[in-house]
Each structure stands twice: as C-alpha cells, then as structure tokens.
C-alpha cells in the first residue's frame, strides 16, 4: 500500500514534468497547427543554461533558473521567426522535417558548446531540516519522511508538483481571462477570421512560442533536478514522451496536456514498478495507442468534421 502510494507520487512528479513540456507542444499545435519536434531540445538548452549559470558563473540557483527561462524564450521566438514562419503555408510534413532539423541543430550545437559527456546537474532545492507534528513528519537531507519513515517525498518532487500546479492555474487564468489569452484562442480557432478582427496573428504565434519555450526551460530545470544527468540528448526522450502525452490528452487542448502528462507519468511508473523495469516506456506508449484507438482524437480533443 505504501509502495503503491510512493509509486503514484513518483509518477505524479514525473508526470508533472511531462505535463509542463506537453503544454508547450499543445499550445504551439493549437495555434500554429504544427508539431514542434525541437521542443524537447529547448528543454535541454534550458537545463544547460541554468547549469552553466550556477556552476560556471556562480549565480544563485533562482537567478540561473530565471536566466534559463529568458534564454529559452528568446530561442523559441527566434526559431519560430527564422524557421517556422516562412513555412506557414507549407505542408505539415515540410514543417515537421524542418523542426527535426532544428532539433538536430540544437543537439549538435549543445554538443559543440558543452561537450558530449554527461554533466551532473546541481541541486536546486534545499529544505531546512525540521521535525514537525511531534515527529510524525521529519525533514532531513532534502527529503520529507511521513508515516514513520515509510513514505519519503523528496524536495525536488514536491517542488516539481507544486510548480506544475502553479503553472496550470496561471496558464488557465491567462488563456481564459486576459486579452492576449483570448487572442490566442481566436487564432487557434480560425487564423483568418482572427486576423480580420484585428488580432495580430504573428505576435500571437510568437507569444505562444515564447510561453511554450519558457515552460520548456522550467521543465528542463525540474527534470534535471530529479534526474541529474545532463547531456545533449537529455531533452529528446522526455520531449517524445511529452508529445505523446499531448496527443494522449488531445493535442491542442490545454487541460488535455495536463491530464495526459500526469497520467502518462503515473502509468510509466506503475508499469516500471509492477510489470517490468525494462518496459516502462513500452507500457506508456502502449496505453497511448489503446487510448487513440478507442478515442482517435485523444482524451479531450475535439472532433473535426471534414467538409465535403
């Protein structure tokens, strides 16, 4: 029972990272109608930036984290302007291949700058040691122990889950309550009509990439605090998983990305713990396939009627 709870918490933490990355995928898909395959590599760039800032330039972790967000935001906008904007009218396959090219470019660029060998990511979260509620909760070594030491929650895990919740709430409010959010919803529904109504489509798309990439930086830092191995391909697999999560939840749907990401993380951890530690990925992908076959537009996707 405790082990199940612990697995679920691990899954929730991993799923939170997936959800944050998937948000970037799904927002870009919803608005630019393209699969930004390079999104996973923006995560890696974000992680490297904060890594360099903290270790080489001795910047406090929080500033390193903010710097990573800033760099990724700029990177996202630049990528969109240079590579994707000229291809707005092109076939989806052409855009996908270009995105793959960007992904290769970022991976190999990172390899040139930081080298191919893995880097150990520094600890970003430090919790004070404490004993609360008469010893029922103790905090030591950045880990919270509950239920008489049986259930351990690491500080990283806690921060990841909290960050995910905060981002979800903030993004939902932004999309639904602000003018820019409304513009984004308009563009995602009908680009042409939005333009006619005076929405600046280019600015809206840039904003979407900016938000998506900033979230990627957050995800990169969170991912590397939990799994502190950093190398140029770090972003690739989580990127694919998050992409899967976005499709799982119904690509284009923001709540879908959140639910998809968290479910995927939990399923992966459950599969790893109870079925096979080798087949965790296969398990996650298999669930995705089953969901898509039962509901071809994902959990929360809208069905689009083809006009004849």
């Amino acid at each position, binding site marked *: 029972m405790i082990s199940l709870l612990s697995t679920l918490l691990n899954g929730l933490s991993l799923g939170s990272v997936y959800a944050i990355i998937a948000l970037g995928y799904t927002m870009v898909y919803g608005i630019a109608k393209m699969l930004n395959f390079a999104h996973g590599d923006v995560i890696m760039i974000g992680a490297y930036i904060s890594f360099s800032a903290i270790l080489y330039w001795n910047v406090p972790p929080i500033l390193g984290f903010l710097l990573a967000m800033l760099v990724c935001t700029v990177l996202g906008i630049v990528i969109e302007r240079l590579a994707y904007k000229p291809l707005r009218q092109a076939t989806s396959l052409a855009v996908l291949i270009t995105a793959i090219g960007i992904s290769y470019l970022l991976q190999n660029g990172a390899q040139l700058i930081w080298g191919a060998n893995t880097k150990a990511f520094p600890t970003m979260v430090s919790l004070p040691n404490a004993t609360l509620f008469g010893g029922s909760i103790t905090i030591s070594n950045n880990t919270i122990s509950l239920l008489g030491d049986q259930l351990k929650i690491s500080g990283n895990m806690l921060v990841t889950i909290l960050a995910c919740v905060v981002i979800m709430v903030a993004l939902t409010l932004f999309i639904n309550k602000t003018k820019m959010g409304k513009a984004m919803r308009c563009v995602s529904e009908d680009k042409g009509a939005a333009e006619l109504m005076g929405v600046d489509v280019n600015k809206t798309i840039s904003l979407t990439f900016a938000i998506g990439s900033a979230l990627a930086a957050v995800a990169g830092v969170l991912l590397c605090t939990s799994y502190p191995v950093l190398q140029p391909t770090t972003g690739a697999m989580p990127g694919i998983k998050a992409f899967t999560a976005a499709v799982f939840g119904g690509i284009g749907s923001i709540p879908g990305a959140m639910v998809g990401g968290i479910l995927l993380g939990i399923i992966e951890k459950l599969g790893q713990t109870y079925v096979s530690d080798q087949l965790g990925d*296969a398990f996650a992908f298999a669930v995705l396939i089953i969901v898509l076959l039962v509901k071809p537009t994902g959990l929360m996707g809208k069905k689009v009627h083809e006009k004849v």
Partner: protein
Amino acid sequence: MKINKKLRSALVTFAIVIIAFLVCEAGIEGWVDGFKLKFAEKGLLVPICCYIVLAVSLNLIVGISGELSLGHAGFMSIGAFSGVVIATWLEKAVLTINDAGKTVPFFGDTAIIIITIIVAGALAALAGVVIGIPALRLRGDYLAIVLLAFGEIIRNVMNCVLVAVDGSTMHFALKINESSAVGFGQGMQMVINGAQGTVNKVTSAAFNNERFIIGFGLVIFTLFVVLNLINSRSGRAIMAIRDNRIAAESVGLNVMKYKMMAFVTGAALAGMAGALYGLNMKTVTAVDFDYNMSIEILVMVVLGGIGSIRGSVIAAAVLRFLPEKLRFLNDYRMLVYAIVLIVVMLATNSPILKNFWALLMRVKPLRVAVEWLQALPGKVRAAFSFGKNKNGKAGEAQ
C-alpha cells in the same frame, strides 16, 4: 515500340542503380587501374544498399500512400533481429551430412542470407499487418505519433529479448526484470543478449562482395516491386486515396485495403533491408533502431523528393556516403547536416525564398541577362537553320 513516360522514367532509375553497381564492382575487383575502393568505402556499400531499400520503402508509405510514418526503423529492427535468429537456426539446425561423413549446414552462406531476408521480410510484413490494422484508422499527426510509439515499443521489447542456441535447439526468453530470466543461456551460445544486441553471428563483419551483390539484388527487387506497384491498378488506387480520400471512396475504392497494401509492402521491404543490415553488421543493438533511425530514413525520403523513387535512391546513397567524406569536418559534421536540412526545406517550401528569385528578376540587368540566356538556344537554332540572326539582334538591343 512507343515507350511511355512512366516506363522510361523507371528504366532510367534502374540504369542509374546498375551503373553505380558496376562502378563499385570495378572499384572492388580493380577492373580499372588506379581505381580501387578503400576499406572504409567498401564497408559502406552493403549499408547503403539497405538504406536505399529503406528509403524507397518509406517513400512508398509517406510519398505514394501519403501516410507519415515515424516508426520505420521498427520494421528494420524486426527484420534485423529475426534475421539473425533465422540465420543461426538455418546454420545450426538445418543440417546435412557431406561426402566426408561430417555434419555440415544444409545451406551455404549465400543461400542462408537469401532465405533469411525472405523470411524476415515476411515477419516484418506480419508486424505491418498487426500494427497497420489499428493504426491506419488514424490520420495525420495522430498516425505519425502512433507509428512512432509502435517503433519505440519494438525497440523496448527487442531490448529485453534473449536468444541462445544449444546444439541445434534455439532457446528464447524475455528479460523484463532484474529477477526474470536469471541464469538463462548458461552453457549455451548466446545469439541475442538483450541490450547488448546480437552476438556470435553466423556471418562475419568483414566486407564480402557476395553480400554486396545480394544487397544490389535487393535494391533491384525493391525498385521492381515499388515501381511496378505504382504503375498498376493498385498503385493508382493508393495514390488516388492520397490525393483525395473522399473522391476515391466515391468511386468505390476500399481505402483501408490500399493503405494497408502500401504500408505492409513498405514494412516487408524494410524488414528485408533490416535482415541484410543485421547480418552484415558486426553487432546490432535494439537502440540502433530508435526513432532517430526512423527520422534519418525520413530525411532521405524528403531530401530526395517526397514521392520520387529515384530521388530516394540517390538521397540514401549520397547521405550515407557523404558523411564519410566529410570526416574532416568532424564535430561540425552533424551541425552542417542539420543546417543543410533546414535550408533545403526553407528553400523548397518557403514562399519568401521562392519569391526571392522573382524579386531578383526585377533588377533590370539581371532580368535582361536571364532572358537573353533563356532565348539563347532558340537563337542558336534560328542562326543555324536560316543563317540569319534577326531575333538575336533584337534581343541584344533591349
């Protein structure tokens, strides 16, 4: 006899492949003085054959049938691993007694490779059916992600496969946990050892001209199948469904049947290429066939021109050969590759770059020069046929 356009185009493709093959053979056998392929170059030949088959078969799925697949390497993986198992079985279990009274394999090395390729192709086709029936109901991005997922599942499962041979008996196991399949293969010869991939293969890794000839034969077979399929009733149906699914349905085409036909044919050919690849390489591991491999094949298809079979052949050969020639770029090699990919996509698809040439033409001296050059052949013809150059003079006066 009147040769139509499609037939002529197909014959040109075959001619290019055959000439390239003969040039390689000349370099291997030293038919021409001073032209000899280096060891590293020879090592590339069989993989290039495999990649040509992979690119052409993926083009059948992506270009001809119009279904984006990001999991082509999965079929290659199935072909490679089943190929190694089949080849081992053929060598260890299908035996005969020779004249000297010794027990030897019934088939020779070449026969083993050919049979293996065929059986592995059939197995990959079977996988194609199993995957295609559910997946091809989906469209566009969803199909792409499901095929990517299938590819990754295949990689994951292959990572756990254990195969050993004990005398002439094959043993199989799946190592899904640290605690499972413990002690498997003790005292036996391992054939596939989980994440370490294939070990103790029947074929050696050194270059072998016979294997190159088989590879060439496989390329010719692939081109024969794919080009003939395209120019037949079924091929027309496949392309009609790609161009306009609703219209194709309205004239009575069974959409699922023809999507499956293209997909399964592509899978079978990829499996055959995978089998040859697996037998040719010193060792292959499941991780070799991850989605990066699928994408590499897709890049070949795209750079060669989606739907152009000849383009896929050339792109696959060039993209496998070029990196070896660009070794001096070393660290920058992949970076250059990525930039070339992006620039090619932008140049061929971006309206801005397409308009760039139109914009250049607005500069009067340039326009005049280009028009003059374009008119040149006609002028030359006119000059030769009539002995006068009136048009030419008018053109220069502009």
